[in-house]
């Protein structure tokens, strides 16, 4: 594979016009990736999901080169009609369209030239891979006090005859003071057996609000990895909701640095898995200053041979007194072959804090089923009603009504 990587990387550098700075950045990242390779279970973070193995058994050998100079056809991509939205369309890792049709154009700036890299390059080898192969840099800045009227939808699409087995995309966002952005990720998978690597980098200034909803619902055979890096200043709020369901493998990693006082982070997730799907959510909430808050809730419903993993970490530095951190994960195992693994972790260096976590997993409560059946429901209906209620808990945490309804209809959950 190393040969293939080198050839593809050379092609990539040659065929696109990068500035020297960009070239340098890409080369450094590429070297780092070559050194580390794909993560495997020897790394603590990947203990429950051996990506190296997963790629080998699901995809086989990867190729990395995409000809970004060619135009993709974006008309074929089915858009979401349920709600009015701004859109970014990414096809095979290339940003084909950025359209803020409902917004004041002066309030939104789109940068395509990369300035200084603000965060360290060595988060993990997949970010290195992303930086080395992703197309032109893109940064979206929402100006001071601007609240987007409609949500921004990002379509991650792949073509049926996509050129390479691996696509990488990265977008940076900056929310200036008091800005507000609602961001929805939707996947349109037309290819099978691809490795899709997405990296978002968010900077949240004072009192800004970010709501990110990731919806992976349609069935596909792709292997996906997504990394959100969120840096928060004082009074900012970030809300992340993950609906993890359709892909063969999907790992969502959320890293949140709470750097300003009274900032808060919310991570909620649903695993609704079937077949041999294997999904993971890994969160890293770093409480770095006083009076910060985080809340995490993850619920799983696991059918057949599916496997869900939740690794949630709360870190509290010694300066971060008065931290409030909470984390809860519940799982219902519906089949003998399903599996739920959790690693809820607390690392705490300050004493005046309130941190707790809880985790439970097991089967549906027999008594509740009995109760419902004695009221005239059949087993299937009773089961459905219980799962409905179980998942509704998380969905109710979504603060945006429009999107809450969208997700309810996607999951077939009723109130």
């Amino acid at each position, binding site marked *: 594979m190393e040969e293939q990587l080198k050839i593809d990387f050379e092609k990539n550098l040659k065929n696109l016009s990068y500035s020297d700075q960009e070239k340098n950045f890409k080369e450094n990242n590429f070297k780092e990736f070559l050194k580390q390779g794909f993560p495997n279970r020897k790394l603590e973070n990947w203990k429950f999901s051996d990506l190296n193995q997963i790629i080998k058994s699901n995809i086989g050998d990867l190729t990395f080169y995409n000809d970004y100079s060619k135009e993709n056809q974006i008309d074929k991509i089915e858009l979401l009609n349920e709600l009015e939205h701004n859109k970014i369309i990414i096809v095979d890792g290339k940003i084909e369209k950025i359209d803020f049709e409902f917004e004041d154009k002066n309030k939104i700036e789109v940068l395509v030239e990369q300035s200084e890299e603000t965060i360290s390059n060595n988060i993990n080898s997949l970010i290195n891979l992303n930086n080395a192969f992703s197309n032109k840099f893109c940064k979206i800045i929402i100006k001071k006090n601007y609240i987007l009227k409609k949500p921004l939808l990002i379509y991650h699409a792949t073509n049926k005859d996509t050129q390479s087995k691996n696509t990488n995309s990265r977008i940076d966002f900056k929310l200036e003071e008091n800005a507000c952005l609602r961001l929805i990720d939707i996947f349109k998978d037309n290819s099978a057996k691809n490795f899709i690597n997405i990296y978002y980098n968010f900077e949240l200034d004072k009192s800004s609000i970010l709501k990110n909803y990731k919806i992976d619902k349609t069935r596909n055979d792709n292997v996906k990895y997504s990394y959100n890096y969120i840096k928060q200043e004082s009074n900012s709020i970030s809300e992340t909701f993950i609906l993890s369901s359709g892909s063969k493998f999907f790992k969502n990693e959320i890293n949140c640095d709470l750097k300003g006082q009274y900032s808060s982070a919310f991570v909620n997730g649903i695993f609704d898995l079937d077949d041999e799907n294997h999904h993971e959510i890994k969160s890293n909430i770093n409480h770095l200053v006083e009076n910060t808050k985080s809340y995490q809730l993850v619920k799983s419903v696991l059918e057949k041979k599916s496997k869900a993993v939740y690794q949630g970490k709360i870190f509290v530095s*010694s300066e971060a007194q008065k931290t409030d951190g909470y984390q809860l994960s519940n799982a219902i195992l*519906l089949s003998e072959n399903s*599996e739920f693994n959790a690693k809820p972790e607390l690392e705490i260096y300050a004493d005046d804090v309130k941190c707790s976590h809880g985790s439970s997993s097991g089967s549906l409560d027999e008594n509740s089923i009995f109760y419902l059946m004695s009221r005239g429901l059949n087993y299937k209906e009773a089961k459905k009603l219980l799962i409905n209620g179980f998942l509704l808990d998380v969905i109710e945490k979504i603060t945006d009504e429009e999107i809450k309804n969208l997700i309810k209809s996607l999951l077939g959950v009723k109130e």
Partner: protein
Amino acid sequence: MRDKQIEDLKDYKYGFSTDIESIKAPKGLNEDVIKFISNIKKEPKWLLDWRLKAFERLKVLKEPDWQKPKYPKIDYQDLYYYSAPKSFTDKPKSLDELDPKLLETYKKLGIPLQEQKRLNGIAVDAVFDSVSVATTFKETLTKQGIIFCSISEAVQKHPELVKKYLGTVIPLTDHFFATLNSAVFTDGSFVYIPPGVRCPMELSTYFRINASDTGQFERTLIIADKGSYVSYLEGCTAPMRDENQLHAANVELIALDDAEIKYSTVQNWYPGDKDGKGGIYNFVTKRGLCKGTNSKISWTQVETGSAITWKYPSCILKGDNSIGEFYSIAITNNHQKADTGTKMIHLGKNTKSKIISKGISAGFSDMTYRGLVDISPNATNSNNFTQCDSLLMGNKCGAHTVPYIKNKNADSNIAHEATTSKISEEQLHYCQQRGLNPEEAVGLIVNGFCKEVLQQLPMEFAVEAQKLVGISLEGSVG
């Protein structure tokens, strides 16, 4: 007056060393040293071969490095692997023949070896450096068919039992420290409870590291045959020394059908001084196998000593309906570090496990609870409940919780809870209002926090442990 008392208490009570001439194996770790140990203990060939096999394996193993407390590299060639009081080459036949100095040491430690044994009737097997010194109450036990002796004696007298069970729970191919122990273990306790016997008294071992530059590598093997019951206590101390000493023991428990083993530890190794100099590295492997149906193994530990504590007493629940329990209090103060917890591996049907862990960190210390609950696909209808609470005193210390939870069986339930907080101002205020000084108030609240675990200890130990909890936290308030 009170200040002086506190001053006295703060110092490590067991920090004396005894001047006894000792025989040491040459420094270093090699085949000759292993042969030397085996030879001096007059071991049969199979055991020497076993040790050498472990040594072979050790050569390819790497020291683990995933733990939270990091420590300077240990030079394994710079340690004495065998150290025995000289007068021991000819083993004493009765207690009266013991070196009076040794007896005095034990008196200082407060172990009931001579006079106290009659009073409270605990059978004690004391391990001094590397050799088991004396086993009291032998006759009473022998009458019931219970074997309680040092492991070297068991190798001589009951080789069939040792051969059958040694290394069945912690195999030769285990991790680095366990394998090191298999290669160079010097002594330890051996217990065998015959079928249907309920051991009439608490069995107890007292470990003490005396000579400098020695590592202590004991090996304890406890077998509870069908329908039997035994409660076993273990206590540890060491003299004050500037350098760090290594303690890498292996403890294997085997419970057959309907048997129950209760293993309690009060660990008070020298924790190092206030600046974190010296102290024991307590890297112990403890593992219990619930081999038979309806068997039960229960671990209780009070960890207050050691510069670094790194251990996970575990239960392998192999038999159907077997039960594993783990109760722990870990207290770290000054520069102490602990990374401790348990593993519950559910293999049999209807197996149950319960984990209660209480961690308290003060000063500049760092404490980690790390635990694994693994329910395998065949362990239908199994249950686990885990609760780990941490208490922090001051903002220079850390408390961490790292549980690994794996559920591969749809009919099994796992519940896990953890909290981290500090002692609430209201509680402190209330206690002080009633006339307690701040330290007494903290002592009272901490004891309440630990009560669930302290209750699990046998009576004699519970009192001592409660005092130990108080002493360990002296000087951490205000």
